[in-house]
């Protein structure tokens, strides 16, 4: 499968990376070069093979519903770029609907 400039632009947007137009051709070339080596996988017969979700056999260990939480040696304010009254601040969203689920920034 060949990857084109539009694919790279789309994927860059998904990953929140700004790729300058001037760098696009080289990037497309490199990614195509890498992906061309993956084509061999299409020829491998994996009927009935389950994807390895992980390599361990063990089941998920659970945690009791108690603290204490893992402590922070320094408070959030000491390493966060911008806080106020305990909140983390970011530039105001372009669309400011109140739904936290709103991915309109996507």
């Amino acid at each position: 499968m060949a990857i084109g400039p539009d694919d790279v632009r789309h994927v860059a947007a998904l990953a929140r990376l700004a790729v300058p137009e001037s760098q696009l051709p080289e990037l497309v070339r490199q990614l195509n070069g890498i992906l061309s080596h993956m084509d061999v996988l299409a020829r491998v017969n994996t009927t009935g093979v389950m994807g390895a979700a992980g390599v361990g056999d063990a089941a998920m260990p659970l945690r009791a519903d108690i603290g204490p939480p893992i402590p922070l040696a320094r408070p959030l304010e000491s390493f966060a770029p911008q806080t106020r009254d305990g909140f983390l601040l970011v530039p105001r969203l372009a669309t400011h609907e109140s739904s936290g689920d709103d991915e309109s920034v996507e």
Partner: protein
Amino acid sequence: MSAASDYEMVVGLEVHVQLLTRTKAFCGCSTAYGAPPNVNTCPVCLALPGALPVLNEEAVRLAVRAAHALSATVNETSIFARKNYFYPDLPKGYQISQFDKPLAEHGKLDIGMNADGTPITVRITRIHMEEDAGKSVHDRYAGATAIDLNGVPLIEIVSEPDMRSAREAGAYLRALKQVIEYTGVSDANMEEGSLRVDANVSARLRGETKLGTKTEVKNLNSFSGVERALEVEFARQSDVLARGGTVTQQTMLWDAIRGEVRPARSKEGSHDYRYFPEPDLPPLQLARAWIDHARAELPELPAAKQARFLADYRLTPAEIEVLTADQSLSAYFEEVARVDGDAKGAANWVIRDVRQLLNSGATLATLKIRPPALAQLLALVRDGTVSHDAATKVFAIASENGDAPLDIAKRERLLQERSQDALAGWVDQVLAAYPDVASRFRAGDKKLLGVLVGLVMKASKGRADPKAVNQLLSARAAAGE
């Protein structure tokens, strides 16, 4: 004639419910409500480099309980997945959720009855676990959005598109909330944010079996808001279709103030969440025996309770509906009925008087008049120790100070007087005060019995037992006095 009547509304609902755990989904931070912003945080829920999630076992337990309450099949193996997108309240840049292989599938909820008595059932596609994102506050600081991170465990309950009207959607939500409350896994309160709803709605010509293109409606804040929003969006879609247009699949936002839906300002098409199995969490394995045991431990659910009340207490459906709307109210009622033995009487007092207290701000937990006291009061009324009116007064006093009704009645001199001497005294008093009425009564005018009883009641300031007065006067009349 509106286009809407040619078309049928098809609705599916996705409901997120916050689970009542002490700590977050993937770390030991407290979930206590009302904490200052970002105070209960740690490397894990801050998504610091190198931090890893570890799942809360109580969240699993509560999620499984909810699944059983909704008659869903709990999978012995389920897999967590990453839902990838960027948003400031999502610290990792992905939400840990479930995609293929959710915790539970194929459930159902009865939301009412058809005219022929068959239940209206909404199927539940799946129930899966995930973590809650934080809260974004947009208007507190100029030019900025303020983030308060979260991480509370959630279950997402996804229904099939089985609802055919806004009313059915509302009924589903109310029934769902009630069942969830009964299980104790969540407060399920939409106004407080522990229950959230996204609606999927489409329109199709009546008779058509294929589904139309759906839109997703978000920003819903109340059950009635859901119903209104569905009507509005359905009307919009019907209108589009009636004019020969096509409905665009998109996210719509409900504006409760204007009563409008409008498209969310986002790129066309659905989001690409790039789901893949969460590599930091091996598959969740639940033993079949444990799953079955969890089902056996379910508290009595609303439908079963309602059926039992019908059979055991002979109450009307309307009475049952009120009493079982809230699990703690039904428990209060049952305790009164158990102690007192008169279910009907207990029902009346709980439905009317107890609920009136609750409406003016009391809670069942803090109510000063406890079931045994109310039962005592009912017994006093039934055996005539206090009149019904007096009982109302006693109830009011008991609800303020929590004292025993009998003590209150004695103290406030509300005991119904039945001693022959006292009654005779008042009767004599009345007969003397109204000689004209007295002589007519003695002469045989039985109609005056009621008048005389009333006068005796007045003379006794309501304390006389009217039945006993009636008996006494009748006896005297018979004896020719």
